[in-house]
């Protein structure tokens, strides 16, 4: 069968002069690439197992290791790029669905990279965030259309009752990543960072581990189609509850955490027996319609006595605007929209790369449709799925999001190299592995500081952007598409996202 195998993607080069045979690299690699060959007194590499995660390279005390792309020549073909040929070899050999991790790997145009922000010159002053107040505080939750007041004994009292809100000190939250998909130290890092930065992390669908309860006021808990880990205590502990309908990386697809990854810890948190497969059905089997969703929203509101917002998370699909309006009408307080570049712990490659629409378009059409339906105040919008920088965050907010969520960016802050092998459970950085010798590589205290640093840095950059725009609070940018211009976008796309081309003034 050897003749059908594909050549290794990467080559691990070890400089024999620099290498001291300390063997540290052999311990660092989670994928079993490196081993020590005593006969030859050398480190041997099984190149075909290398995923280019750099762990060995980073931990080599003598910088003796280089990872290279294995550039082997194929005959050129515009129709048959190499990766498609290699997928055919793999599927011909196994008959299986190809799995992958992380977000969309195809080179679709990124609309964020075709949008530019405005700044003030002369006629209105820009503001200096180092000298003047600059506000990023954001509240997520349903707001009434108006407030009414009454005068009581010369004092103006608020009569309107406002639904519960989640307070964020920065409009950036952590995207849902379940225990199982990521390791417990990663979730702890996220929870601690969320507390430090005044934002929240999201449990994903894997339940809330006992060690995370102390951080619950900065945690949103998910109720997904598998209902893993859901009980009264779980719902009551959290800052908010999220019904997970879909995920940007795999819209319409359920989840499958293989039994091998369900150790005692994951089992206890998910409330299933150890070693059993954790299957999340593709749909919720009690939600086959918008009215069914309404029942679940209100069942959860009843369970927590209307004390916290209920969010509904959906993937950005073609009809997202109408779906979002339905969700708003069904009583959700927050809608989390995950674009087609959003990441995953495991998904069929064909789904990850080919299903859904970009978050830039989704957030724009949802914001606009909610406004036209007079529903925009009744829900907050979170945009996710490839928020890669504070610039992306600012642009998403200008297009209409109340806040953005980051998943991959947070994992990169913890060392992730985006090797896309999350589903293997071998993550050398300990991020997506449940193997204790790997997962303990994340020190939650150190991880939390790195994540909090990232949020702090992006928040400061957002303040710089606001200052240049001449506004001193984030709500003056939210939905203000007038401050965006498109470069190199076609007219239809510009019309759909409500942005003028560069060169057009106000």
């Amino acid at each position, binding site marked *: 069968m050897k003749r059908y195998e594909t050549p290794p993607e990467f080559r691990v080069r070890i400089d024999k002069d620099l290498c001291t045979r300390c063997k540290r690299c052999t311990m660092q690699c989670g994928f079993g690439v490196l081993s020590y060959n005593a006969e030859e007194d050398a480190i041997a590499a099984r190149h075909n197992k290398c995923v280019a995660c750099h762990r060995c390279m980073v931990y080599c005390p003598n910088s003796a290791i280089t990872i290279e792309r294995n550039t082997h020549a194929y005959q050129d073909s515009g129709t048959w790029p190499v990766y498609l040929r290699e997928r055919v070899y793999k599927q011909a050999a196994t008959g299986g669905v190809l799995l992958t991790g992380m977000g969309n790997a195809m080179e679709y145009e990124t609309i964020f990279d075709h949008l530019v922000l405005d700044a003030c010159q002369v006629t209105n002053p820009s503001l200096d965030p180092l000298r*003047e*107040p600059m*506000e990023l505080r954001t509240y997520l939750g349903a707001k009434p259309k108006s*407030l009414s*007041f009454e005068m009581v004994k010369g004092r103006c009292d608020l009569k309107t009752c406002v639904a519960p809100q989640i307070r964020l000190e920065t409009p950036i939250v952590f995207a849902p990543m379940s225990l199982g998909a990521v390791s417990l130290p990663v979730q702890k890092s996220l929870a601690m960072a969320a507390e430090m930065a005044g934002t929240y992390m999201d449990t994903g669908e894997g339940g809330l581990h006992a060690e995370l309860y102390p951080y619950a006021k900065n945690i949103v808990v998910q109720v997904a189609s598998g209902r893993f880990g859901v009980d009264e205590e779980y719902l009551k502990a959290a800052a908010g509850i999220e019904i997970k309908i879909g995920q940007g990386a795999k819209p319409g697809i359920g989840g499958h955490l293989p039994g091998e990854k369900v150790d005692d810890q994951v089992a206890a948190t998910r409330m299933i027996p150890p070693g059993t497969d954790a299957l999340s059905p593709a749909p919720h089997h009690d939600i086959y319609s918008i009215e069914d969703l309404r029942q679940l929203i209100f069942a959860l509101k009843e369970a927590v006595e209307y004390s916290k917002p209920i969010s509904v998370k959906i993937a950005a699909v073609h009809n997202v605007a109408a779906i979002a309006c339905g969700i708003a009408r069904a009583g959700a307080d927050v809608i989390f929209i995950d674009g087609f570049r959003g990441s995953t712990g495991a998904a069929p490659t064909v789904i990850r790369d080919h299903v859904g629409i970009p978050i830039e378009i989704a957030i724009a059409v949802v914001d606009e449709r909610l*406004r036209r339906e007079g529903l925009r105040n009744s829900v907050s919008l979170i945009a996710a799925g490839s928020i890669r920088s504070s610039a992306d965050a600012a642009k998403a907010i200008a297009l209409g999001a109340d806040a953005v969520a980051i998943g991959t960016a947070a994992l990169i802050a913890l060392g992730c190299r985006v090797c896309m092998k999350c589903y293997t459970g071998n993550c050398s950085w300990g991020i997506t592995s449940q193997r204790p010798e790997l997962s303990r590589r994340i020190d939650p205290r150190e991880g939390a500081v790195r994540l909090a640093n990232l949020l702090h840095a992006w928040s400061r950059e957002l303040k710089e952007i606001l200052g240049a725009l001449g506004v*001193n609070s984030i709500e003056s940018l*939210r939905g*203000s598409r007038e401050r965006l211009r498109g470069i190199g976008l076609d007219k239809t796309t510009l019309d759909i996202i409500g942005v003028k081309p560069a060169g057009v*003034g106000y």
Partner: protein
Amino acid sequence: MTYASEGHIPSGCAIAALIDRSGQRVPGSVIVQLMASMRERVTDLGAGYAGYGIYPEMRNYYAFHIMYASGAAQVQTEELLHRHFYVERDEVIPTRQVESITDSPLLRRYFLRPTSIALAEKRLKDDDEYVRQTVMHINADIDGAYVFSSGRNMGVFKGVGFPESIAEFYRLHEYKAYSWIAHGRFPTNTPGWWGGAHPFSMLNWSIVHNGEISSYGINRRYLEMFGYKCTLMTDTEVMAYLVDLLIRVHELPLYLACKVMAPPFWDQIDRMDEHDRGTFEKLRQVYASAAVNGPFGIVCGYARGMFGLNDRVKLRPMIAAEKGDLVYIASEESAIHSVCDSPDRVWNPRGGEPVIAELYREVMV
């Protein structure tokens, strides 16, 4: 009447206002003098005035001041007015030839009120709402017609020219008002259109504005949710609609409406007592998209008074003064001194802190 090509033109300005709280009427020459001393701040590209109490004999009728670019627009508009309104009087707005003003549109005024049939057809009980919808409809849909004043016992006079020329053109010294607001414009481009001058007015509200709204994009989209069509692409139009929405439609107390437009900072709110913290927290949460960000100084006139307001970090000048029953607001202190010898009090209002001056409670107008 839409002038898309004009676009959204940032401008600097001089603003001035005065009110006699006892209801005594002050001649237009006083407000013209206030403006004249701020010539450095203005150009000949736009000026205007609003006077309250100028039509006491017609106080029960809405006074529509309308600009027509063509006779056809006039025919179409008058047909609409006569169909839905009882028109008490219909006349040319008296003007005088001024050498520097050569391109004035047709200017007419109508004293009218909606017929009960018209109200019933629209299922409206409220005259004001009917008038508002009519004004928005004419301005958006009748090409060449623009209603620039639609309140009762008040009127707006504006056009393209220096403040003194516009006053002379409209014979402003012949009117007397208990409250006046005025504006002179320093635009970055030539507007070439009379409707673009300030004050911008709707019903009894009139607004003069010095500034550029950096949050224009979201304020406009917010107003669209409530059925306001921003046709002029000007910041001031947005200001006027916000005031109308917050105070007339949502019935927010005036002070809180000002706090929506120029909200206190979160760290100030965090330090408030529980009652106020609750109020302002909710106010900012609910009205986030109505917050006006960027430099502005505005004066807003209404039937019983006026208020002046700066953006919350005071990026544009605004001075207030008081002498006896009179209260003055102006972009420059010197302007106030030019019409008021030794005021009792002169102060520089803090950013976001409104100056509210109203007729005394017992004064009937």
